[in-house]
């Protein structure tokens, strides 16, 4: 579904990704963990070309990722993206946010887009917030709307960049619950997260990134309980200590 080969990304002199290889099969859930600045977001953003890779090949559903134009827009429409800070459109209601993709990109009729958007708001548990503006919603509610907005495009895969990191602790659960539902439905997902419990529970594979490399990867039981690399152990030690 998603294939990344020899991916390198430089910002000026700073090399943030230094040769990353990754394959995500259809229906697979991959969680990416690692310290701040290790390149997790950059990896995710290269996959839908919000960042231009410096080197390397990215293939989506067997096709090379287009470099721009309508072809790239079409691929992006098939890759849902959820951001740490939601990025809902503040001048649109929750419902209008979810309708925006189908209306503008898929040229659906208002009625069809509304029907689908309403169903998705029900799915994320926000049917009663359809006409609220993002500014009137809690962080957890905003993030659930953002997930519904991405799902409205009927994506083949979803990319999550620390979807719960900006949330108050008591709001994390409601967002993770929606994500678990997607996992259960067989969605292909790449999730950058610091929620180790979530990763352990739902990931088919966990990647540990550090310094622009994938240092270690494997099933969660292996990466979390029997990590091979010293850097992974050090990182997990710190994180688990913080979590108490």
């Amino acid at each position, binding site marked *: 579904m998603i294939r990344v080969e020899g991916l390198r990304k430089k910002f000026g002199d700073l090399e943030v990704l230094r040769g990353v290889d990754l394959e995500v099969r259809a229906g697979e859930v991959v969680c990416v963990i690692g310290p701040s600045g290790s390149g997790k977001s950059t990896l995710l953003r290269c996959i839908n070309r919000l960042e231009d890779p410096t080197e390397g090949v990215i293939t989506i559903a067997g096709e090379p990722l287009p470099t721009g134009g309508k072809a790239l827009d079409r691929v992006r429409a098939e890759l849902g993206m959820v951001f740490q800070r939601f990025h809902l459109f503040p*001048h649109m209601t929750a419902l209008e946010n979810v309708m925006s*993709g189908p209306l503008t*990109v898929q040229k659906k009729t208002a009625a069809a887009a509304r029907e689908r958007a309403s169903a998705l708001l029900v799915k994320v548990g926000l049917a009663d917030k359809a006409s609220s503006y993002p500014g009137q919603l809690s962080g957890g509610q905003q993030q659930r709307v953002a997930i519904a907005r991405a799902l409205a495009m009927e994506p083949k895969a979803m990319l999550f960049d620390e979807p719960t990191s900006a949330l108050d602790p008591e709001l994390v659960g409601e967002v993770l619950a929606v994500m678990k539902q997607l996992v259960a439905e067989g969605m292909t997902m790449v999730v950058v997260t610091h929620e180790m419990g979530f990763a352990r529970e739902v990931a088919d594979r966990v990647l540990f990134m550090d310094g622009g490399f994938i240092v270690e990867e494997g099933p969660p039981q292996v990466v979390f309980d029997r990590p091979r690399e010293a850097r992974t152990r050090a990182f997990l030690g710190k994180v688990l200590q913080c979590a108490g």
Partner: protein
Amino acid sequence: MDYLAQNGPLLLKGAALTLQLTVLAAAIGITLGTLVGLARISPWDPLRAVVSVYVEILRGTPLMVQLLLIVYGIPQALGWQVNEFHTAVVAFGVNSSAYVGEIVRAGIQSLDRGQMEAARSLGMSYGQAMRQVILPQAFRRVIPPLVNEAVTLLKESSVVAMIALTDLIRSAQLVASRTYKPFPAYLSAAAIYLVMTFTISRLAGRLERGLRTE
């Protein structure tokens, strides 16, 4: 009262010309300026370069010089006859477009980059993202500076007295010399300017509040 009866109509006629000039020039300025602002942030380098020169020239030379160049320069250089009023409207509108362009650019750049990224990640093209997501938000932010620009335009339009158009200030000059009493003439002109600028600000304030309650 006699004074008003005799001189009021001339002053009001001048005020009407000032207002017409300002409204038409502002319409051109906002339309052209929005395009200038979009071009200033275009992903296409050559367009950005050309437009930044355009903005620099218009902002780097006095409006009066631009006006005189067009009104007296064009007939001499090209042999065209120009209508002073129409020319003044165009000159003011074009001049204003440089300032409006900067306002629009700043308004767009003040938005979180994540807005554009979220729109693009849904599959929207650059143009769709601009129209659906960026411009509607930027619009709210640019209203206050645009009102400032309109007020400035109204006040600076007094330079058309240089090209023999009878605007408000020129009318006041005529009244002053006709009555030999400059003070009431200019005081009246000041009062009328104030009424006009105040009205613009009030209308804009109402528009802004209307948008905010959405």
